[in-house]
């Protein structure tokens, strides 16, 4: 993996502020934001001190993204004010935020994959000249990167960068655009723990140097405890508490987040896996979006009542494997069978074999953003009773009733079953998909990073559900970039590298150095 070596981490050297002036602070004062009759934020205040890292915590749907979107000018708050430095500012749109020195990094990548880092950065500037002198731009960017505690290969197309490097490029972009206050919305949910630590370390270094003030949304207490100075906790659109991180423990933060509600009790794997093979993948080959081979003959068997974990650095064919199994990509060779029958991922086969899927980035892979929550929840069931009457007629009332039931059972936070699913918070989109896929009988479950972006209570909940499904006899293929998750849940663990399975072990016998070496492609 030489993309890994393109970014060379360097020790954190405290740097003086780039232009002499220290980074300003940021204050949100009594922000209220309503969506129709629903109050997403109720007089929430937050104070980011200059040159510090401030963590923003809260359950899925607590209003974290809405708050930063109000600050960045994506939404206009109904009440409240934003103060940058010591001036109250009115930010009408994200471009205005840029002129006030605010920059935001999203959970999802926003760089254009086919363009190089340099091209992306130049095109993002507020004023792009009609004719671009690339050589001069390159020099300027290189000089700028010299002042950074890390380097990025500016000539690499973004698509070839690993997730951690992409996220760093996003940060570099904001710094290059002169952001002094950096807002990060779940920046680490697409990163491995190592990548996340490295990135957060760099950011913290820059904050310590007075170069940046950072507001970071995260679901990981570990990151809050290790990298943040202050913390603000939201609960259901209200301020639940704030203060110095040093005065808190993960437990006290968790209590602030969820109040007195309880979290799911971890479920133990009960009994050994079955003996009958349920899902059998043999010699599977497939191409990636660019038409290049991504899977080079994958062989894998999942038995009934077994969780097989697939570990690997992202970009080694996991996405393509999941897509082939989900019916989103055609295989070029090899076979997939369920029981003893070949499986081609048609609707009829999915129904007969009870195959369900939890893909990553559910809004992009498993939902129609413009359709309502109820409609999205009916994707598996719209053509069978009670929603379909006589095979042809839809009964919207029945669809709505089914959705209301799922919303309640899976605690999906939404303004109602008729809201477009794109208006749900990231974690709640995930829950809605989960409700759709796991509420039915499941014999085979394909899950890819199923807890990305979920709060700790939801993580516990979903892990419990996956293990429960396994205990009921479901064959589970669990693809994840989080090795800890795999070691905790799997019966058997395989490592995927360069489009093939290169190593197999059990969590009990796992040797982390061997796994690490296999993941790195040795």
């Amino acid at each position, binding site marked *: 993996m030489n993309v890994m070596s393109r970014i060379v981490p360097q020790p954190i050297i405290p740097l003086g502020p780039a232009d002499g002036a220290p980074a300003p602070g940021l204050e949100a004062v009594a922000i209220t934001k309503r969506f129709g009759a629903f109050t997403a934020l109720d007089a929430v205040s937050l104070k980011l001190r200059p040159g510090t890292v401030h963590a923003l915590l809260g359950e899925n749907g607590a209003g974290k993204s809405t708050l930063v*979107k109000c600050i960045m000018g994506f939404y206009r708050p109904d009440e409240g004010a934003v103060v940058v430095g010591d001036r109250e500012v009115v930010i009408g*749109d994200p471009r205005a935020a840029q002129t006030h020195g605010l920059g935001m990094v999203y959970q999802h990548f926003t760089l254009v994959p086919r363009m190089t880092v340099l091209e992306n950065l130049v095109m993002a500037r507020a004023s792009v000249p009609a004719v671009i002198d690339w050589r001069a731009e390159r020099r300027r960017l290189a000089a700028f990167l010299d002042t950074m505690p890390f380097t990025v290969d500016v000539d690499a197309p973004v698509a070839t960068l690993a997730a951690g490097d992409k996220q760093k490029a996003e940060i570099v972009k904001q710094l290059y655009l002169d952001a002094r206050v950096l807002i990060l919305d779940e920046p680490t949910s697409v990163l491995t723990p190592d990548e996340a630590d490295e990135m957060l370390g760099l950011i913290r270094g820059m904050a310590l140097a007075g170069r940046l003030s950072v507001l970071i949304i995260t679901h990981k207490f570990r990151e809050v405890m290790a990298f943040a100075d202050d913390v603000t906790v939201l609960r259901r659109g209200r301020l639940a508490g704030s203060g110095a991180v040093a005065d808190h423990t993960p437990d006290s933060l968790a209590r602030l987040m969820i109040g007195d509600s309880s979290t799911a009790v971890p479920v133990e794997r009960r009994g050994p896996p079955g003996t009958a093979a349920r899902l059998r993948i043999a010699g599977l080959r497939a191409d990636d979006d660019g038409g290049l081979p991504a899977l080079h003959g994958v062989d894998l068997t999942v038995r009934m009542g077994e969780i097989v974990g697939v570990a690997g650095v992202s970009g080694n064919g996991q996405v393509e494997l999941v897509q082939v199994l989900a019916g989103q990509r055609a295989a070029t060779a090899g076979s997939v069978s369920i029981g003893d029958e070949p499986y081609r991922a048609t609707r009829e086969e999915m129904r007969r074999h009870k195959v369900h899927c939890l893909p990553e980035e559910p809004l992009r892979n498993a939902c129609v*953003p413009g359709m309502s929550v109820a409609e999205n929840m009916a994707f598996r069931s719209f053509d069978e009773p009670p929603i379909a009457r006589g095979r042809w007629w839809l009964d919207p009332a029945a669809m709505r009733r089914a959705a209301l039931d799922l919303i309640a059972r899976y605690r999906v936070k939404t303004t109602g079953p008729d809201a*477009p699913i794109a*208006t749900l918070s990231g974690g709640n989109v995930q829950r809605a998909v989960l409700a759709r896929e796991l509420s039915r009988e499941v014999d085979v479950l394909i899950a890819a990073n199923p807890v990305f972006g979920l709060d700790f209570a939801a993580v516990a909940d979903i892990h419990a559900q996956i293990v429960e499904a396994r205990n009921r006899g479901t064959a589970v293929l669990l693809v994840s970039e989080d090795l800890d998750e795999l070691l905790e849940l799997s019966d058997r663990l395989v490592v995927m590298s360069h489009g093939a399975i290169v190593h197999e072990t059990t969590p009990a016998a796992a040797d982390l150095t061997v796994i690490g070496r296999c993941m790195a492609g040795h």
Partner: protein
Amino acid sequence: MRPFLHGAVTRLSATLSAPLSALALPVAAVAVSLALFGAFVALVGVDPVEMYQLMYRGAFGTWFSWQNTLTRAAPLILTALCTALPAQLGLVIIGGEGALVLGALAAAAAGMALNGAPAALVLPAMALAGMAGGALLIGGAGALRQWRGVNETISSLLLTYIAIAVLNHMVEGPLKDPSSLNKPSTPPLADAYMIGTLPGSSVHWGLVAGIVCAVAAWVLMRRTTFGFAARMVGGNPRAARMAGLPVGRLLVVTTALAGAAAGLAGMVEVAAVHGRASASLVAGYGSTGILVAFLARQNPLAVIPVAVLFGGIGASGGLLQRRLDLPDASVLVLQGIIFVVLLASEAMRGRLHLFTFARPTATPATKEA
């Protein structure tokens, strides 16, 4: 009382704001276009106010003009469906003209072949032939897209040229009526095979056919499992594949249905207006139908009033020519302006805060951030 009222009002405004903002864009586009067209005619020395008064009179001012307007609206509804139905799947089909032409030719040929049979048999046969002709053409564009990866917009446009060429070839060759000398056409349809008019009017039954089809299209897309699946494909093909939907079949069936609607428009034109197939069938109903569909924001029900509006614009052309000495084609200029303004406003939508930020419930952010 007050909090209750407040809640009720915000709830109401939330439910209203979606359709309202959906209306705002096309209404604004038409208003801007009318202003631009007014400036345009003012340039050639015509008083815009007088012109719009005349246009209104020519379109909706009298019972006579209403009948003219509705007669023109009938085929427009059907050709607009040819664009609006595939749009549910995310396809942009602009071959309505070709489907209409091929449908008209097929209908005329069926009428010739069955000449002498009872009308109760011939008329349904003509309608079926017309729909089959249109379905073949636009379904072909859908199939090319699904199995050969050909862009459906381009192919439906090019297939239209082929359809027109086929029409010309047939009416000048194999199907030519020997007595149609300077304007080649098929033999006239027997009077018994002509679709009648609605009682007490000169508007033919094609209008009813159009309205029935539009309502049926809406029901199909909104109230059936087929339509649900089609909307899934249109909204996110990945999600549709994950649900195991037969994307290709949905695509081809929907495009074929769309073509059938425009083909039926061709049959109606033959059996209600022209009485024969000839080159004068290429009258622009197909291309105006594209505009109608876009202005109706691809909603099959909204197609009906928008088609009436454009039927009216077309109907007023004659009066403008007679009274103001404006060329007949000037209403085409207005149509063109509306289309350009509409497309431009769609493109601007993301940038105008008016639409993007004022009503977040109506235009949800598509990206979770």
